């Protein structure tokens, strides 16, 4: 096979390209050639279609997935030849400079430090200066034995990002500088710090040098200072700013300098807090310190390992790039503050697993895997292995690792725990992310490519259900102290995590802590300056079923030991209680009435108990403020659906009343809700009491009678028969049920074949329903009507309208309601999220364009296909992820497919996609079909999008979502949710401001608050709590009428949930002058342009028609009458 040959060739090149010990400029040039060849391979790799197909089926998820991966890999690869040439140059220069730095005589520590500062203005970046000065050994500098380029740049797995690329340069220190015991008590690190300072001095001293130097911590580890070289930006020969890189120089030592056995994770190497250097076995182990030292020794061994692996396994590098992108999108990095798992760790894990890790010493991964298989297998490994409980020790003797309670992937060949920088919480997060991604990659239906690699999944607001910011004061930090090397912040976090994770129990599924990140600092200071007060950000992923639990059950009173521990942990909050089942348990009771949600009460209590009131007072929470705008503060999940309980109860009563009705010619077969109110998703939950009136809409209900041959075989007659039925039902209901009002109403007066009637049934409790009769014969009759070729166009239009309306209100709405009812009980936060999203659409005056069902589909999609996250457990994540998805949804190219059942097959999905593509082919201008939102209930995909949004409005939705996402990103944790709901009047050509009587209309106010709203209605019993006015909404009728009158020429925007103004945009078609035409659908004025009038004597001939905007606005003002306070026009 052709592909086979190319692979072989590639392997040969790669094997010749590495030579790590000697780094020369010559080699780099050779490497560039290499690069060109590599690029060629990539094109050769794109084989013939058939081969590609067969390969893809086996080794990739699908051929589509493979193609996408290829594009991704090509996209992220920086151009090593063009972009990196300046930095190559600079690297060569640096090497020359470093090689000619003169040696220094051994000097006493204090003396050496002073000397450097005096002559070079360089502070030695000692970790613990006190300890460093108080020693007897001497510090010295001599020429490094080796200079290597390491890391992803050397491996060519660097990834183009918005930021800069770091090029790692490892300087091997001569072994002669160190003594055997230098691994103890930071001695190695002090010598190293001094060496680094001398190196910087030497670089800065050199007259050729124009680079800028600063110190930084390698991977945020504060015992490993390093030097960052940034470009001079002077445009000179050595300026490499065009490469958008910086160079990190860090020291390393040869792997055999120290005894590996002494640096095992269970050994102690820091003796400072223990008095005498007694037997090492009794001392607490210092795994972090040991591993840091080992990492210093294993830089070159790992470089070798990676080169070996990439020559053995062709897809290793690509797999590393994939892993790297995956980690990056989830906020992981080698830096301790980013979780301590970056591309180095990824590559190390993959490379090690290619050599071992499987059963019986075999390797877990095979070199013949494709890059995707390697990637997925590594994910699988990360997801399925718990390396805290079962530390993984490879190629090494057993030692006391399991007791340490840290994630352990011990690579015996290089004597290092690869995961040593990870904290317990970052490890749990990594596991979780790996598991989610794995599920997603296994999901044959979802598009997992974007979610895996493209979407940025680490925005805390979109990732965590609740965030707490805990400022840490120096006093708190000064109490922290540990044997192992650990910053005080890290120790604090450790304690915080222990407390929170024990206290939160099953309320939270994950707790993640992130602290401040240290940047680089100038070379005349020994440590980075701590600016403002640092803060710890705690992110919680909640378990929506448990988070709001009021009573916690502890151990039974008989279990003395556990009960004591429980009491000890919870203090006075713990109380002994007897429960209904007779058990006596230690328990905790939280306040249900408090404004603070229960989960926050738990967190605050724990902080107060463990860290004092000062910490507790300063804590701020982000997340619950998103439930503010529509929900009661502190409403927990169960309460939100409970708000709909009254109407659901009344609905059941209605069903009973109708079913028990006697005297109807046909038996009732089905009665089902089809209104947002009956599926927990209306913006305002229906009021639970009070007489119904203009303040509310009745909830739609569809009733279906048993089949009968006696229905007429004619559409218009069916509609009339329905009226007769409704009249009969009304009569019987009013007779048989007390306190009920039933009124038959008419709709769609301009059509005879659409549904023309409904029945409003109102109970005394305030619940109101609107019944429509479903007749299945209509469907066939409409189809037959549409098939007949002799139908005149106008009739055809009407029939099409009737058909789509039939499908919507009778067929789809019912199943949609049922599906959502089920989902809302399954996902506690679905209902409030949908309501918030609807409120968002309404606030931006999109009520008329984005139907309620469409908004519901958007949110359901976020809950059912939450990738790259899991289903939201808070309103905030649900809402923000919906916005993010809306901002990213390319509706021109992709349909929305919602799978309510979770049982859709690839075939179903493909069928929908085919239908979508067919629509796009028929109507590429998207004049008829814009958004395509299908589901397993509605594979046609147009039910909820047929009447809007139009292309312009859809683009506006995307733009609004984008700017909302940008605002969220910019504001970060300071986000004020209300700001996302403020409409802008600036985007409209004109705005129609409603007079105050009508603008506050329907904002879910209590009826009592609006006695005087309708002056003109006072004859009608004065109140809007009047059954006659049920569902009366003049503003909606006004906007509907406007839309009909100015159909194609003005787009109206309106907030049906209490907007104060209506926005209008002139269609560009209507605004250009055009020649005389009789049936233009807008008011015009004749116009003769000056030049033409001068040329031509007869102005009549050249007059054109222009839209008469002022006249139209006057018309609107006339139509609106007393409802409008003013119209503002831009031009």
């Amino acid at each position, binding site marked *: 096979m052709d592909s086979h040959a190319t692979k072989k060739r590639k392997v040969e090149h790669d094997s010749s390209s590495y030579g790590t010990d000697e780094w020369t400029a010559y080699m780099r040039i050779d490497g560039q050639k290499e690069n060109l060849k590599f690029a060629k391979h990539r094109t050769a790799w794109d084989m013939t*279609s058939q081969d590609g197909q067969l390969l893809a089926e086996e080794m990739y998820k699908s051929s589509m997935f493979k193609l996408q991966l290829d594009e*991704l890999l090509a996209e*992220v690869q920086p151009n090593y030849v063009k972009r990196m040439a300046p930095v190559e140059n600079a690297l060569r220069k640096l090497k020359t400079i470093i090689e000619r730095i003169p040696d220094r005589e051994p000097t006493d520590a204090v003396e050496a430090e002073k000397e450097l500062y005096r002559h070079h203005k360089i502070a030695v970046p000692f970790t613990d200066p006190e300890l460093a000065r108080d020693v007897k050994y001497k510090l010295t500098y001599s020429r490094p034995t080796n200079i290597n380029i390491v890391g992803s740049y050397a491996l060519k797995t660097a990834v183009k990002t918005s930021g800069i690329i770091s090029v790692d340069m490892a300087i091997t220190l001569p072994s002669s500088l160190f003594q055997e015991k230098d691994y103890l008590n930071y001695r190695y690190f002090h010598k190293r710090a001094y060496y680094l300072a001398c190196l910087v001095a030497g670089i800065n001293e050199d007259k050729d040098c124009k680079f800028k130097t600063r110190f930084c911590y390698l991977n945020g580890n504060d015992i490993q200072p390093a030097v960052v070289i940034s470009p001079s930006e002077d445009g000179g020969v050595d300026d490499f700013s065009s490469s958008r890189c910086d160079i990190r120089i860090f020291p390393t030592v040869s792997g055999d300098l120290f005894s590996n056995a002494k640096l095992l994770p269970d050994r102690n190497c820091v003796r400072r807090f223990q008095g005498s250097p007694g037997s090492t076995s009794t001392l607490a182990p210092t795994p972090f310190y040991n591993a840091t030292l080992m990492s210093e020794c294993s830089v070159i061994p790992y470089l070798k390992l990676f080169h070996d692996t990439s020559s053995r396994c062709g897809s290793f590098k690509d797999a590393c790039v994939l892993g790297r992108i995956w980690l990056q999108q989830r906020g992981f990095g080698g830096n301790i503050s980013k979780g301590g798992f970056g591309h180095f760790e990824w590559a190390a894990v993959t490379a090690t697993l290619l050599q071992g890790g499987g059963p019986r010493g075999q390797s877990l991964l095979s070199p013949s895997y494709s890059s995707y298989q390697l990637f997925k297998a590594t994910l699988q490994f990360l997801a399925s292995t718990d390396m805290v409980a079962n530390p993984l020790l490879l190629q090494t003797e057993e030692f006391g690792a399991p007791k340490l309670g840290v994630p352990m992937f011990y690579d015996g060949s290089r004597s290092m725990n690869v995961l040593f920088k990870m904290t317990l919480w970052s490890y749990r997060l990594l596991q979780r992310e790996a598991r989610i991604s794995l599920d997603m990659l296994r999901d044959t239906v979802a598009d997992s490519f974007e979610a895996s690699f493209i979407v940025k999944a680490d925005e805390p607001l979109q990732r965590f259900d609740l965030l707490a910011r805990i400022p840490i004061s120096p006093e708190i930090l000064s109490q922290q102290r540990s044997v192992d090397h650990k910053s005080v912040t890290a120790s604090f976090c450790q304690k915080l995590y222990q407390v929170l994770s024990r206290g939160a129990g099953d309320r939270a599924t994950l707790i993640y802590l992130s602290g401040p990140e240290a940047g680089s600092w100038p070379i005349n200071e020994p440590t980075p300056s701590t600016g403002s007060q640092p803060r710890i950000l705690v992110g919680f992923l909640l378990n929506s079923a448990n988070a709001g639990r009021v009573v916690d059950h502890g151990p039974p009173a008989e279990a003395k030991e556990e009960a004591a521990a429980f009491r000890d942990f919870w203090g006075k909050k713990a109380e002994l209680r007897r429960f209904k089942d007779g058990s006596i348990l230690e328990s905790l009771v939280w306040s249900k009435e408090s404004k603070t949600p229960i989960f926050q009460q738990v967190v605050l209590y724990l902080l107060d108990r463990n860290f004092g009131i000062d910490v507790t007072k300063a804590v701020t929470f982000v997340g619950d403020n998103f439930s503010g705008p529509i929900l009661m503060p502190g409403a927990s999940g169960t309460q939100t659906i409970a708000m709909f309980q009254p109407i659901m109860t009344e609905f059941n009563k209605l069903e009973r009343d109708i079913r028990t009705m006697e005297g109807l010619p046909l038996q009732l077969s089905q009665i089902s809700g089809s209104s947002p109110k009956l599926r927990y998703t209306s913006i305002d939950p229906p009021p639970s009491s009070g007489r119904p009136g203009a303040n509310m809409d009745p909830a739609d209900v569809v009733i279906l009678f048993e089949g009968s041959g006696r229905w007429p075989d004619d559409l218009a007659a069916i509609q009339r028969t329905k009226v007769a039925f409704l009249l009969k039902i009304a009569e019987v209901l009013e007779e048989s049920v007390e306190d009920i009002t039933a009124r038959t109403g008419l709709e769609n007066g301009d059509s005879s074949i659409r549904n023309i009637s409904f029945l409003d049934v109102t109970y005394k409790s305030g619940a109101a329903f609107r019944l429509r009769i479903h007749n299945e014969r209509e469907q066939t009759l409409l189809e037959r009507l549409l098939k007949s070729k002799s139908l005149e166009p106008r009739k055809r239009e009407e029939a099409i309208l009737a058909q789509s309306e039939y499908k919507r209100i009778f067929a789809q709405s019912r199943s949609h309601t049922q599906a959502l009812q089920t989902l809302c009980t399954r996902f506690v936060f679905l209902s409030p999220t949908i309501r918030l999203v609807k409120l968002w659409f309404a606030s931006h005056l999109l009520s008329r364009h984005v139907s309620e069902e469409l908004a519901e589909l958007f949110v359901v999609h976020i809950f059912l296909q939450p990738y790259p996250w899991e289903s939201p457990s808070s309103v905030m994540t649900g809402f923000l992820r919906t916005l993010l998805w809306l901002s990213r949804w*390319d509706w021109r190219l992709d349909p929305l497919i919602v799978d309510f059942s979770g049982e859709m097959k690839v075939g179903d999905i493909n069928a929908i996609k085919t239908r979508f593509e067919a629509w796009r082919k028929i109507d590429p201008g998207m004049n008829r079909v814009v958004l395509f939102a299908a589901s397993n209930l509605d594979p046609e995909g147009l039910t909820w999008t047929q009447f809007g949004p139009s292309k312009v409005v859809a683009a506006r939705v995307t733009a609004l979502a984008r700017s909302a996402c940008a605002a969220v990103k910019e504001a970060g944790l300071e986000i004020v949710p209300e700001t996302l709901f403020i409409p802008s009047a600036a985007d409209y050509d004109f705005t129609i401001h409603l007079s105050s009587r009508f603008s506050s209309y329907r904002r879910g106010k209590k009826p009592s608050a609006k006695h005087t709203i309708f002056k003109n*209605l006072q004859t009608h019993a004065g109140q809007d709590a009047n059954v006659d006015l049920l569902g009366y909404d003049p503003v909606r009728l006004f906007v509907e009428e406007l839309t009909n009158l100015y159909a194609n020429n003005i787009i109206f925007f309106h907030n049906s949930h209490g907007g104060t103004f209506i926005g209008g945009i002139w269609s560009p078609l209507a605004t250009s002058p055009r020649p005389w035409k009789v049936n233009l659908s807008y*008011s015009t004025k004749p116009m003769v342009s000056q030049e033409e009038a001068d040329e031509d004597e007869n102005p009549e001939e050249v007059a054109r028609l222009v839209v008469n905007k002022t006249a139209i606005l006057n018309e609107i003002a006339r139509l*609106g009458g007393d409802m409008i306070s003013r119209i503002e026009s831009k031009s």
Partner: protein
Amino acid sequence: MASKTPKPPSSINGYIVLPLQLQALPSFKEPAIHFLYLRRHEARVPTKDDARTLFAVNVPFDATEAHFRHLFSGIGGGRVDNVKFLGSRQHPTTTTTVEQLIASSTKGNNKKRKRDRMDQEDKAAGELPETWDRELHLSGSTALIVFVDKGSLEATTRALKLYGKGKLALWGKGVEGGKVPALGSERYLAHHTLCYPPSSTLQSSINAYLTTFAAAEAARARHLAQKRQEPDEDGFITVVRGGRTGPARHEEATVVAEKQKGKGHYRDFYRFQLREEKKKRVGELVKRFEEDKRKVQEMKERRGRFKPQ
């Protein structure tokens, strides 16, 4: 725009331009002028009323007969008899289907024609109550203004020629004060009320309709039954619906045909079938791959699809 044309042309494309002053409103104070275009009506199919009819273009959306009456009397024109608004909100003749049914079934039948006339009378009773108190027209629509006689039309034409020298006529003058149903919230309240007609009215309208419909159906059934008996001049009997063994419904037939399809065939019996099947599968794979490739290419063209955020 206005500065470019100090004065609009007095006529356009054979139409007289009639500028009308619009009442400034508290909510929209900008002075606005509406332009009505008028000419003598020339129907494609001439009728006797043509001579006294004006064809109006760009009728204001709220125009009523009263509006035009007052407008023309205001400028010294003739008296308006009636106004026919074209292209306004579609007003369905709710009984069309019945009418058609009857028409189709009663062609050339004298006795039936008499019935037909009776139906016409019933029609009004079968109508559902109107839910709007005043009809509005689409922006920019047209109307036929019929004057009482030819003289009135000519008087109007003369008046129009003089018009424009003096002050512009005010649109809607003379119809204020409840002569036509008001717009604004009152209109919508009225609509809301009209949507719930008294059940007795509704019931009688439905009864009337259904009676007519039943009668028509019966007539049609009779007619069809007759047709089934009568051979045409070639001696053939036309096949029509109904009857004991009438032709099946089309939909039912398709369903049955669908079921029959593919019965009694084996697809993997012969070797060539297997071979072809395999070939087809490979072909599909290749096709899908090509399609995917095209899709990816398309995505690539839209920037950002392959760039990690």
